[in-house]
């Protein structure tokens, strides 16, 4: 007597991983954004870079270092923690807050460029704008991101974009940086294999 075989469970295929930016490409992208900042701000006078943790903070320092290498000017760099300004605080367990470091020059009357790794829904940037307005009154605010992956939920756009990556909502973009993760890379994870 032959019994029908029970269906073998299909092995779950690991999510596909695609490298979007290698270490060398990422360095070139940072260089380009640094040049664009210099161009668009006519030499970056009166400009302050504020990185949004976690990975916006080292990116802001890198941009400032490249601008210094190109033009020999020092741009003040700071860190803007947005935890307490998030709109989803109550949907998660309580989050530890990180440091906010405002350069001694402050932000009043300055052109502030917010720096983050990935621009997605835009909610992080909205929180950053709220946090910034509690620190002072910048003359203008711009946004620089390494990757724009689309799917905005708020009317927010970036002034400087390292790379536009069309993504599906199910995919995720992982940015790793030497300072925080040991190596520079941008990967697209998930979606169709």
């Amino acid at each position, binding site marked *: 007597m032959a019994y029908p075989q029970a269906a073998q469970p299909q092995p779950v295929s690991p999510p596909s991983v695609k490298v979007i930016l290698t270490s060398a490409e990422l360095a070139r992208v940072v260089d380009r954004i640094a040049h664009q900042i210099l161009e668009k701000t006519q030499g970056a006078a009166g400009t302050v870079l504020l990185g949004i943790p976690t990975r916006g903070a080292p990116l802001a320092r890198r941009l400032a270092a490249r601008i210094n290498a190109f033009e020999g000017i020092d741009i003040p760099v700071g860190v803007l923690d947005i935890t307490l300004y998030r709109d989803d605080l109550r949907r998660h367990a*309580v989050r530890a807050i990180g440091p906010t470091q405002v350069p001694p020059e402050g932000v009043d009357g300055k052109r502030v460029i917010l720096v983050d790794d990935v621009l997605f829904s835009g909610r992080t940037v909205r929180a950053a704008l709220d946090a910034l307005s509690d620190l002072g009154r910048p003359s203008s605010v711009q946004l620089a991101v390494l990757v724009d992956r689309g799917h905005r939920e708020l009317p927010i756009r970036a002034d400087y974009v390292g790379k536009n990556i069309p993504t599906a909502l199910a995919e995720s973009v992982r940015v790793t940086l030497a300072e925080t993760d040991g190596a520079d890379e941008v990967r697209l994870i998930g979606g169709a294999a």
Partner: protein
Amino acid sequence: MLKHLLSGADLDADTATLILDTAAEMATVAGREVKKLPALRGRTVVNLFYEDSTRTRISFEAAAKRLSADVINFSAKGSSVSKGESLKDTALTLQAMGADAVVVRHPASGAPHRLANWVEGSVLNAGDGTHEHPTQALLDAYTMRARLGRIAGLSVAVVGDVLHSRVARSNVLLLATLGAKVTLVGPPTLIPVDIGTALAPGTEVSYDLDAVLPTSDVVMMLRVQRERMADSYFPSAREYARRYGLDGPRMARLPDHAIVMHPGPMNRGMEIAPEVADSSRSTIVEQVANGVSVRMAVLYLLLGGMK
């Protein structure tokens, strides 16, 4: 994270350190143009005070307001309590008004623990009887870390009326968790037998302040509760000041880096001489400022996330 903060023993080393780190970030808000954060918008904090208090109540109120919470102050005087309402009925009233947190000070030891069983929100003990005052211990630990750079390994002398002091109890518990060595100093009548081993093993007891001072990194003077003097715990105020008061010559016996703390309100000339209270070693004013930052951190960590 915890739901309530009732005792210094509720905190393990990681949680206590998280609170102190969060408080350090909260402290930067005090120097900003807009001294306000939106983290607790729409949350209601009730200050339920059955005992007189200035600094603790104002400190909790300032902390809650800086986090954008709505604050309702309730003091037993002039309320339904004077008409005979019980703690439980008052608690249920506050519950019905939608309090997300109740900050309670009560003359009965253990009242906040009872309250925590009756209300759905968080309960913060702001001092209960002669039992505990955990946010005071946290702000003291914060002050030590800010001045001396660490807590682990510090020698801390807690001097005075340990018997009636909730500040001392919470400090012994928290400092032991954070790795400091505590010595309780005072007249034998004011130090319960075996209190050290009962609260935290490793705590020492001494009846001789002068012997303890040269090896102390921190001296924490407790308030002599004048209302208890009729109970003859010591012969006279002058004798107490002579043996256990911190004056200039005694302060000179301390190591150069040592700091002098006091939870306030102080009796100048009794447990602490004016020249000590106003010296650069004294952290008394810093303790008040740090209290707001520490209470902001506690309120945020208790109420900031998902219910």
